[in-house]
């Protein structure tokens, strides 16, 4: 890190739109998956107290940012087409783990690590020892009647302008929940598929189907039952708005550029939650502002989302990483954690 060390706080306030249903689940009850929610305090106008509101966890959003930054690093360092050891993948995409050893990392090693993998100084990680991160990623919280009072005024105004026709309300959290039903089919129930079986296998399946028809008790039914399985899961409706805030403490232009690049790369194709392969989880930033505090006592400088689309975003990061291509390649061959 060669540029002058100046502490700056950065904040991104974003409104994300669910382009497809979002299936960020907390768990399941039987065959029904249910959405992850966050407990929020209700405004006095809704009677006070607490309610559970769907969200995409800060943990998941932070992982998406880390992953975007890691792909950028691999590309800029020419390592995208190389193959890597398990330790490298774990460090870049999982944050690494604590390994054995004496539990200490030397200052020289620490500096080398954050110099070669600059996004680690923001996201943190473990390579033998914990490297603390300096980026704080909030949940992407559903914008609804229960949460509107929790949003900064500029975000709340933008959300209302985007979603609420004059004279109507934003809608309660429950209105944004949808329930999807899917069925995992048993291909052996289809004569066409059975036609592909070998002679012996076809006879076996036919025997099972006939036994099923004649099954008299529960044990027999269980033994001969089909593998067809209906299942349901909750999802956030398409078009739902989510409020997402990211805070960071940065010390150099490299860190600031790394953060902007990670944000831009992640938002270019943001996907979260389950069912990504079946039309779920796509998010699009529809409104945003970034605040920058150049010193502790300074007033915030505010810009809009367009600052993430400027061409210069990522230039400092790419130049820094490109300069260290060989060193990064050598380091990745030896990385522990």
């Amino acid at each position: 890190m060669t540029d002058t060390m100046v502490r700056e706080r950065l904040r991104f306030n974003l409104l994300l739109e669910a382009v497809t249903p979002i299936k960020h689940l907390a768990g399941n009850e039987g065959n029904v998956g249910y959405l992850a929610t966050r407990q929020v305090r209700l405004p006095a106008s809704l009677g006070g107290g607490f309610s559970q509101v769907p969200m995409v966890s800060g943990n998941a959003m932070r992982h998406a940012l880390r992953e975007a930054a890691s792909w950028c690093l691999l590309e800029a360092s020419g390592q995208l087409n190389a193959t890597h050891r398990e330790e490298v993948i774990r460090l870049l995409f999982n944050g690494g783990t604590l390994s054995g050893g004496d539990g200490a990392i030397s200052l020289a090693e620490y500096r080398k690590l954050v110099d070669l993998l600059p996004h680690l100084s923001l996201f943190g990680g473990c390579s033998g020892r914990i490297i603390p991160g300096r980026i704080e990623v909030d949940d992407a919280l559903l914008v609804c009647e229960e949460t509107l009072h929790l949003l900064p005024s500029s975000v709340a105004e933008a959300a209302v302008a985007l979603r609420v026709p004059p004279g109507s309300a934003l809608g309660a959290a429950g209105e944004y929940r949808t329930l999807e039903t899917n069925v995992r089919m048993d291909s052996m129930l289809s004569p066409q598929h059975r036609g592909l079986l070998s002679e012996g296998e076809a006879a076996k399946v036919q025997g099972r189907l006939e036994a099923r028809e004649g099954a008299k008790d529960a044990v027999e039914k269980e033994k001969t039952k089909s593998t067809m399985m209906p299942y349901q899961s909750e999802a956030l409706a398409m078009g739902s708005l989510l409020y997402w805030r990211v805070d960071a403490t940065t010390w150099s232009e490299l860190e600031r550029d790394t953060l902007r690049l990670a944000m831009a790369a992640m938002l270019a194709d943001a996907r979260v939650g389950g069912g990504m392969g079946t039309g779920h989880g796509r998010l699009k930033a529809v409104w945003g502002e970034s605040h920058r505090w150049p010193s502790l006592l300074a007033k915030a400088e505010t810009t809009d989302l367009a600052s993430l689309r400027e061409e210069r975003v990522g230039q400092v990061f790419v130049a820094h990483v490109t300069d260290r291509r060989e060193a990064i390649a050598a380091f990745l061959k030896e990385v522990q954690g």
Partner: protein
Amino acid sequence: MTTLRSVRPYDEADFVPLAVVAHLDGDIIIPRAMPALDGLLAYAIAQEHRLPPLDAQGDNPPSIEVPLARSSCGRYHLASFGIAKQAKASLQHIHRKWPIEVSQALSHEKTKSVDIATGRNKGYRLPIERVHLETDQLWWFAIGHVEEVRNLLSWVTRIGKKRAMGAGKVEKWKVWEVDAWGTGFPVVGPGGHALRPLPLEHPELIEPRAGYGVMTYPYYQQAREEWLALPVDHLREAP
């Protein structure tokens, strides 16, 4: 050993009894002890001096002195741990899973398989409690320099655990001078209960609760635990 202080000079003659309140924006995760005011200030000074993580500082890291008065024995600072009551708790699970798709794309040809059922790549689903505090406020009492405590706390934007994933946002800090409630201020409450880890022989304590604790920051270093009078868990029980 070098001792680091806040970068602005202050006069210890200006130390007064003070109250500190963190107004939170949302919930907070406090699985064990409440946050310590002196620990937060030491963190802020470490940030001001841009210290690397403690583990990376070698065998002889600098010590940090916060703008708070020290006890007569000099072993701890006159500052309480956080005081708050919970309004409502909820359970969250934190998940980790091995990035299979990335691993398939980037793994070295010598990697024949990756064990994701045991060892370092094992996924987890970790339960953790998040709490909303009554009136969204967390209180501390101390004897120290009002202005310098206020300056340093502006470095602290989130408190508690899992700050990196959205918990413990501080909306604003308030620091002001108060009247002390008695000779135990600010480390022994009016009822004689400890408000921070204290030596068991502290004269103001009444029926102290003994246990293993760390006397001064950094409080996460469990190897430094000793047999002490521990503070009441205000979050979950009445003092």
